[in-house]
């Protein structure tokens, strides 16, 4: 077997182990709930800042902000699933040797599953998601019109935080999310991934 085959096998093994760990954690949390059950339906929105791993993107377009409205459904004993939309990162700057006008926009739709542990008014939670992120770069130059940076990529996300219920069903949340997002539309690989530091508000409906 050549080295490429070996690397592929190693990667598969690592993925398998990671998946096993996640399944084990979720099973553990479902079977051994420590607090009250979560609400049936939850809507919320998170706002905050986001970083970009790629140093060239960071230097050119900079870090940015994001917003993430979402809807979640409680399944069983704090286990929930949901979906949300990530927007907000849309930057405009001059780029290249000739400082031509350019924009970069990254948006995403994310489906997630998570577990929330409610301890009185504080509920820490953890989420694992699967998102589809779109990225689009435009450059105002006649010379690069053959290049189109407008594509999508799916990725796993991981998210953790805490909710605070000052009154029944209304909560404030703070969370940190990491989105790995390496893309390669042409010969250069660019890491659009990064951390999201957000705070938000939401409401839980009990049916």
């Amino acid at each position, binding site marked *: 077997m050549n080295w490429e085959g070996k690397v592929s096998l190693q990667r598969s093994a690592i993925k398998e182990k990671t998946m096993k760990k996640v399944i084990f954690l979720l099973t553990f949390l479902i079977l051994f709930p420590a607090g009250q059950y979560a609400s049936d339906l939850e809507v919320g929105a998170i706002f905050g800042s986001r970083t970009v791993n790629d140093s060239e993107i960071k230097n050119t377009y900079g870090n940015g902000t994001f917003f993430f409205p979402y809807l979640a459904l409680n399944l069983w004993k704090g286990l929930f699933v949901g979906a949300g939309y990530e927007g907000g990162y849309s930057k405009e700057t001059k780029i290249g*040797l000739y400082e031509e006008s*350019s924009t970069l926009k990254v948006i995403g739709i994310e489906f997630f599953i998570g577990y929330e542990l409610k301890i009185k008014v504080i509920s820490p939670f953890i989420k694992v998601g699967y998102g589809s992120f779109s990225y689009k770069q435009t450059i105002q130059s006649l010379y690069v019109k053959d*290049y189109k940076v407008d594509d999508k990529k799916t990725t796993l996300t991981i998210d953790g935080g805490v909710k605070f219920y000052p009154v029944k069903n209304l909560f404030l949340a703070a969370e940190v999310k990491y989105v790995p997002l390496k893309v390669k*539309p042409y*010969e250069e690989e660019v890491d659009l991934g990064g951390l999201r530091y957000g705070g938000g508000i939401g409401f839980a409906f009990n049916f």
Partner: protein
Amino acid sequence: MMNKHFPLKFIFFSFLVISTVLAAAIFTSSIFGDKEERPILSPPSEEFIKYLEKLEPQKWPKYSDDGYPLGLIPSPHDLSYFKDLPTVKIEALPASYDLRTTGKLTPIRNQGRCGSCWAFATYSSLESFLRPSENWDFSEQNLIDHHGFDWGPCEGGNTDISTAYLARWSGPIHEEDDPYIYATLNEFTVRKHVQDVIFIPPRSSSLNNDLLKQAVMTYGAVYASMYYKSTYYNSSTYAYYNWSEKVGAHGVDIIGWDDNFDKNKFTTPPPGNGAFIVKNSWGMNWGESGYFYVSYYDEFFARREFSAAFKAEPAVGYTIIYQYDPLGWVTSLGYGSDTGWFSNIFTATAFDPLLAVSFYAAGSLNTYEIYIYTDVNPDQPRSGTLANLESGSLNSPGYYTIPLKVGIALRPGQKFSVIVKQKTTNYNYPIPFEYPLKDYSSQATAHAGESFISSNGNTWSDLHTSWSGQYANSNVCLKAFAGLPPLYPPTNFVLQRLENNFIFFKEYIDNLSWEANPKNRTKILKYKFYRKTKGAADLAYQLVSELAANVFVSYQRGLKKDQFYTYRITAVDELGRESEPSEIGN
């Protein structure tokens, strides 16, 4: 009273007086009379005599002792007058220099089983002169096929022969038009005009090398002659040192030097370190990828004949060449002093104005005066109207073209003369001429009323009709050029590939810059810019843009990483002429 013998005495006295006066008149006439004195022919070199007499055939074999092709025929010129040339010291020269690192060389060629080393050495020099802004491959085949001397294509030659071929505008021809060994066309386009060939005198000592070094730095590869025998070649160090045997005459090119080249690398150590870096024409598999090192102390390397740096001008320019000496400088004439006069009378064939004159200079220091007369009488070079007078000096032997400060108007059918008074310091044969030497240049021909020589510029002798026809088929080496001033392409054409980073991808940009050629004498109106995909045939060149004469930079944007082009730029002058291109590629 008168003596009775008075009449007899008177008659006898009268006879004596008349005889004395007549004798004196005849004697005076022979010394100071109008008849031009007989010139003296320069002696040929010893090696040339031996070559003609085939006395030492081992010196002129077709192949070296280890089977490699040779091909150098000795020049007729006796250069012994350079043997006492004082050592020239040029302080600014570096201890080592190598044209291989400068982009001034064309690739190593292979002369095959043909005595054509001289042709390869000639074009290696000429192509090197034009590099790096122009990348040419000239046809050695055409040179050896059409040299015009008394032997066939693969039988050898020398720098005089290649100079004659080039100076008469028989070449250079493009290699594609007449590829080595198989000629395909009967008519050829001359790609360049060789108007100057710098001759570097033979080295008078092992360390008198600075003139050669300076020529390499100034012009590029320099044609040089040597004797090759494998005994003197160290194939593991590529070092050659021949200290004793005149065998295997060969033409090569000097392309650099190393003053510190270790003497112990030679089969027999010479007295000191130092070697020339030499380009051969025996393919890449011989020597150090076709190159080798010749000791400064080699007894024969660049020491027997002129070394030569060939220069070229654009073929866009002079359109008419007036000449009678297609075989060029075969030998020389003189009148016992280092000053002589020579002239050609030409008949104008077009209205194109006369712009330049060319001739050979044989001395290490030469001064000249050029006279142009129009509407001259036949057989009288110095008649009609003096139209131009130029003077100057030439500090090296060679073939030179002297542009006239003012063009001279001509009309078809008009007779005009070109006269040169030349002083070749310390060399008493200042008149270069073409001469039919048996087994060498016997094809030379001449006619009455063409070439004239003189010791004083007043009384002239027609070479064809004087001295009982001794020089009936000889012409002086004196050419005249009419047309328009040469149009040179832009210089310092430089390409730099830039990366324009858009993060997700890179745009590649070819940044091209150039400079106006200061040699142009007509006003440049614009530059035309062409490109082709790298490796494509020249026919694929496409016009990209036309740029104003004050624009000296162009950015070729939107290129991909693997997208490479070769570029050409030409100058267009006020007369609508487009120059030859300067070329550059990634």
